[in-house]
């Protein structure tokens, strides 16, 4: 207790260091898995590029050019050494720098995710809180039913239904969300509409359920029972007592939702042909474009690990009790 300030900080520091190390190890494993996984698929970049035009000589020449004649381990090490220095190489299929291919797509993915989050989070978190306040009411049941319905529905089905209704029947929005033709910012609204609506519909269920559960968990604690015994209204209990305590959980849920919106939207990107990272990765797998797939995978892993870290870190900050070292251990 002679150095209280340092003592108090050390759990924080321990947390950051341990999460940093485990995050780095995860990233390493992810890159290895992607490399081996892509190599295990039948065919390679050369055969995918040449297709039916592949003669043995053309294949051999292209493989030599692309460095595919090297052993897998050597190729991985070569990639790793460059990647550590921030050089992700060039796309095997197009010869362009990976960063040049990746960055515009990352921008598109972040745009879609953030617009979706702006609509999704208030709806889902608000809905979850409301459902907890009016637990077991018709409102709660209806919300529970619809969110389960959308949770159970495959993402592509939601996308296709929206396309059918809003693009094909009504003609309000384009069915393919490719960057607007010769268009400016206003055109982007048009383009983003259907993917964003799909993401809100698909993503809200999970977030709403978790928010509701987090609040109900707090409501089951002794101090809330005490408050109820004292005759405080349910609304006041939730807003003044339960919500602040559930805040760290809701924050985590929200951040993970955003991570989900960036990383897990491959299906939606494909359905709407949206030029995001997920679609890039799928297209690149088709061409065995290992450098691009690898960079996409790394970026996805980085975003997910980073968001998880951020969620846990913020949870610590918001909740003072969790900052203390475990007592009695």
């Amino acid at each position, binding site marked *: 207790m002679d150095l209280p300030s340092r003592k108090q900080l050390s759990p924080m520091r321990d947390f950051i260091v341990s999460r940093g190390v485990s995050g780095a190890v995860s990233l390493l494993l992810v890159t290895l898995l992607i490399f081996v996984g892509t190599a295990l*698929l*039948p*065919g390679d970049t050369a*055969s*995918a*590029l*040449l*297709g*039916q*035009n*592949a*003669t043995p000589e*053309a*294949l051999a*020449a*292209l493989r030599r*050019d692309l460095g595919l004649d090297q052993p897998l381990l050597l190729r991985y090490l070569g990639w790793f050494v460059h990647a550590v220095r921030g050089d992700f190489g060039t*796309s*095997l*299929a*197009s*010869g*362009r720098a990976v960063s040049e*291919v990746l960055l*515009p797509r990352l921008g598109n993915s972040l745009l879609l995710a953030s617009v979706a989050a702006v609509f999704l989070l208030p709806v889902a978190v608000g809905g979850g809180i409301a459902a907890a306040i009016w637990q077991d009411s018709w409102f709660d049941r209806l919300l529970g039913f619809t969110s389960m319905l959308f949770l159970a529905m495959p993402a592509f089905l939601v996308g*296709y239904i929206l*396309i*059918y209704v809003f*693009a*094909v029947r*009504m*003609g*309000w*929005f*384009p*069915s*393919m969300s*490719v*960057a607007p*033709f*010769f268009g400016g910012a206003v055109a982007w609204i*048009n383009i983003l509409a259907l993917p964003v609506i799909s993401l809100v519909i698909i993503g809200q269920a999970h977030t709403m359920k978790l928010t509701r559960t987090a609040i109900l968990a707090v409501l089951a604690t002794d101090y809330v029972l005490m408050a109820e015994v004292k005759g405080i209204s349910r609304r006041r209990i939730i807003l003044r007592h339960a919500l602040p305590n559930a805040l760290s959980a809701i924050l985590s849920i929200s951040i993970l939702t955003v991570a989900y919106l960036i990383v897990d939207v491959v299906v939606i990107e*494909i*359905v709407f*042909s949206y*030029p995001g990272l997920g679609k*890039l990765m799928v*297209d*690149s797998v*088709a*061409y065995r*474009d290992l450098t*691009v797939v690898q960079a996409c995978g790394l970026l996805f892993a980085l975003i997910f690990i980073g968001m998880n870290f951020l969620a846990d870190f913020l949870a610590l900050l918001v909740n003072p009790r969790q900052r203390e070292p475990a007592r009695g251990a």
Partner: protein
Amino acid sequence: MDHRTGVSRRQFIASTAALGLFAATAPAFAQSAPKKGGTLAIGIEGASTGDTLDPRTFNSPYWSVAAGTIFNTLVEVQGPANELKPGLAKSWEGSNGNKTWLFDLVDNATFHNGKPVTTADVIYSLQIHNAEDSRSNSRAIAAGIASMTADGFKLTVELTEGNYFFPAMLSNYPLCIIPEGTTTFDGVGSGPYKIARFSPGEVLELTRHDGYFKTDAAWVDQVVILAANDPAARASAFQSGQIHIASMLDTRTAELIKTLPGKALVTLSSSQFVGFNMRADMAPFDNADLRMAMKLAIDREDVLKRVYGGMGRIGNDTPIPPNDPLFAAGIPQNSYNPEKAAELFKKSGFTGPLQLHTSDAATVPAVDMAALFKEHAAKAGIEIEIIRDPADGYWSNVWAQAPFHATVWGARPTADMILTTAYSSASPGNDTHWTNADFDAAIAAARGAPDEAKRLDIYAQAQALLSSDGGVIIPVFGDVVEGVATMVQGYVPGTQPVGNYRAAEQVWFAWPLKKLCLTPEHILGPGDFLKSGGSHVPGRTKGRISERRGQGETAYLSDLS
């Protein structure tokens, strides 16, 4: 319909054209006077994030259309009968047994960067395809050039051997003309539209090239070519009015599209085909009786009806479809005959099931067709076991290797090209490994033959050999189905997608133009377009273009020379 009896080929083409093509699509081609303006959106498959603007890498429907919008070839092909039209060459003439070709180039064409198009550019553009590191699908064409000499705007090409089809081959889309010395391929061409934005695997946005040498072409202001690799996405984008031309739609959705107001269906008599290869160089298909048994064990009418929704033409196990001018109508047609097939199967001495490899890689019809083939062959007592391989790696691991497998060949500009590439003994593309000296000699002789009747005769012999002895089963040539919005005028359907790649420079809009999306274009009734009257007559739509002097012979731009 049996088109071999009593109906001449010409009549047949005319009747199919009238029934199949123009009857269904006439409302779409009610013409208004050409008018400038608007943005044309085209959706087609075959784009990838790995795409580049190097013409030697162009090898997909998407890039054929992109090339036809950005670039020019020396010779162009138009219409259902593959009529040769002038491109950058306004006329051409073969001599010396078709070994020497003289091309007369237009003298007023300019590249997007303002430089004039010269013979030096043409020589460079053709030569790069045969460069050491070239993986061009037109490499064999460039390799057949012995030398090129220029004199002003006249270009003389010496070939290594006589080839009557050389001008037609030059219409192949990768053989587009780029400025001499181009090493960083940035898409500068001489075509009607220049690139405003290129996002590989997403979209190509183009604006009109003001110095375009064709004076009454390139009506729309801007062109957008959308990477729409998924047929469902393509169909819904077309339905919703996001794109005006959607090519290579699923034939099974054709009926639906037909019923949509403001949309028209175009069927192209493509020579693309899906077939089954029997490797003639190894057991069990090194037995000619077994090969013929299999050819008689597939019900071609049923395949046409159930796989292609009736939209296509019956094949005779040669890559030449009945609508091709070189089609040999006089040779026996292989058709479904379970008894005869059973008899030949027994005679071959082979017993047991035959394993047929198929895959989505060889297109969806290949998978459906294999399932039908199994049914049909069972009636002849032949057991087929279907092995469905993953699309990934199919071309390198299964195609041309398994004894019995599905194949697909895209349309080639001339019948000679597909015969040479896929069936001549020495070709690396000989995926049935069928070798026949008589066949090889026939196609080599036909190329040099100066006389059309003689040429037809030689090709008939070659087709007879392939049909009776060859290793490929080609039951049907499926039509390529395209959707074209009726507001699009002047569209000339050919045998290749999107107006033989060049719809962008052909079409104009029926004004007043309805906005894309937000104002659904399909609210307009088809009657709005019918009022202007007139109907589409092949070869007349662009009356300016040429006087045709027989298939493949000199044609020229009368108003440009």
